[in-house]
């Protein structure tokens, strides 16, 4: 099963390497990982999407917790949470098919962020399904390049990872 894990870490030198090498040393797989500072620049939040059964997930959580620079680990998949990913897509866009592209972009509340004579670059964000649908529709155009951020996620309601961050 797929899990989205949120990890609050100290913003120390090498912390990303510690988390990454934990996953590789223990043979856990990382599907995506994104990381950036919190409001307090001494901390960062990592969102890790990983795959594994209950037992593997339990080990991942425990092993992450064991890292000294890790403050808090939460498996969001067991709770009510919001998940988003952003992607930039460069597609071939000749005059003839631009109209069609505009329409799709509008329906998906995406944005055109760059235009050149032969290409257009689109910014889109959403959950897994939305991105998948969007890419599917764009297949009829020539997709030149896709870059994705990896997922970020947050608990719904009042809940938060840890007070004060």
């Amino acid at each position: 099963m797929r899990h989205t894990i949120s990890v609050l870490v100290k913003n120390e030198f090498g912390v990303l390497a510690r988390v990454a090498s934990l996953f590789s040393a223990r043979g856990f797989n990382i599907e995506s990982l994104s990381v950036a500072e919190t409001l307090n620049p001494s901390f960062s939040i990592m969102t890790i999407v990983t795959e594994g059964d209950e037992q593997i997930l339990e080990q991942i959580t425990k092993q992450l917790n064991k890292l000294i620079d890790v403050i808090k680990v939460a498996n969001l998949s067991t709770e009510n949470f919001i998940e988003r990913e952003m992607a930039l897509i460069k597609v071939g866009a000749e005059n003839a098919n631009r109209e069609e592209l505009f329409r799709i972009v509008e329906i998906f509340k995406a944005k055109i962020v760059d235009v050149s004579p032969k290409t257009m670059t689109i910014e889109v964000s959403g959950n897994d399904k939305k991105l998948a649908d969007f890419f599917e529709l764009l297949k009829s155009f020539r997709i030149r390049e896709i870059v994705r951020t990896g997922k970020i996620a947050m608990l719904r309601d009042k809940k938060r990872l840890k007070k004060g961050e």
Partner: protein
Amino acid sequence: MRIPGSKILMECLKREGVTTIFGYPGGAVLNIFDEMLNTDLRHILVRHEQAAVHAADGYARASGKTGVVIVTSGPGATNTVTGITTAYMDSIPIVVFTGQVPTPLIGNDAFQEADIVGITRSCTKHNYLVRDVKDLSRIVREAFYLAKTGRPGPVLVDLPKDVISTEIEFKYPEEDVFIEGYRPTFVGNVKQIKKAVRLIMRSKRGVIFAGGGVILSNASEKLRELAQKLNMPVTMSLMGLGSFPGDHPLSLGMLGMHGTYSANMAVTESDLLIAIGARFDDRVTGKIETFAPNAKIIHIDIDPTSISKNVHVDVPIVGDCKIILGQILEALQDENLDELKIKLKPWHKKIEQWKQAHKLTYKKNGSLKPQFVIEKIYELTKGDAIIATEVGQNQMWTAQFYKFKKPRTLLTSGGLGTMGYGFPAAIGAQVAFPDKIVIDIAGDGSIQMNIQELATVSQHSLPVKIFILNNRYLGMVRQWQELFYNRRYASVSLDYPSPDFVKLAEAYHILGMQITDPKDVEEAIIKALSTKEAVLIDFRVAEEEGVYPMVPAGAPINEMLLL
């Protein structure tokens, strides 16, 4: 007053109660070694950095204090990696200081630069690169705190040369160490304790399984109290040997691949297993599906990652085993233990039968047997020495035939199985206890992995005894080839011919003896034990002796190859 990093380091070491350092100098740590001359610290100069780490590790295992190492950058640092990994696998508290090139040069492939923080990330509990001398005292204090608390382990601190030479205004931080992401659990959850007691009271065929955690947490007294109170048999992992007296009637000896018949049978037939500070290594469990198939398992461990990692646990209790054993003992006060004891009677009868059916033994045919040498060492030291082992058959025979009575008397590399560990570890233990008898029981292969340390014992007048069970083979590997590779002996003979260990000892200015006849064993050991200096004895033992019982790798532990 403005003082340099090197002096701050000395002040911190003093505050941590450090008296002894194992190490080896070099360019990047010249300032530190120079500053050390102004202190009372004792520096044990070894002959290879790996040995410095093993010695600090042996010092820590024997004394319970944290071992300290200082080495230079680059090759000095990389030479510590095997030692650090050895300590990591066995959860031993040591702090290793490595020199590093000056901060502006880091990443430039500078002379004697190695990314030791990167290299040791997965074999330390934590590691640090000190980038600013202002952080030095905090980091040193955190390093010692992390090494010793919770599940102990090695911590490495990398010290760039400029950080060590920079002077700052310094005041020692007196407040307690606080590390936000680090809060080990010590006290057991009360509900879990209750559940455990309920399982204990319901059991008819219980076994206690004591691991290295009992020794690390100094919980032997409590363990003995519990075992006696419940009248429950106790088996130990290799790392747990000594946590419960090996000569106690309730002791089953070691469990697992080379464990005793009675221990492996009892665990397999048990209906309750109380695992204390043990991590269910595959050398212990054998085939996991058939391990203690009918038992409920109570597992006490300070590290949540140890629990339910390999075997399914019914009642996990996270915390320090000394505290938790205290909690369990208290909770047992309200229970009717006499009833439990009566219920256990048939169980004890069965165990006695297993004990009698296959005692630990060996074929006595007149040749010099390694097991006999260990029996003699046991007898003549009255089981009261500190014994280090190398890795292989020598290690397993020691585990089987030396009945360790007290914790911290066996120093052995269990998790990593590092050949070359025993001799330097014995050096560390001897430094911690100058007046105790410290013996390295070695194989002729392993001893040659850190043989250069003969110079260290000679230089520091350490009376370490080195007893080589010289079978002219990499014996343990030879045994596997004998059993599982049709006796095709590939690269295991060391008889080209075997080195003259007596001359070698003499070359290093220590006494060497060679023994070939069983009737000379006793006298030689007595002579060695009464000599106030280091002694090496080359026991030319039978070449193709095997360690039995043996559970083939991956087989159920009740399916043992017996003698």
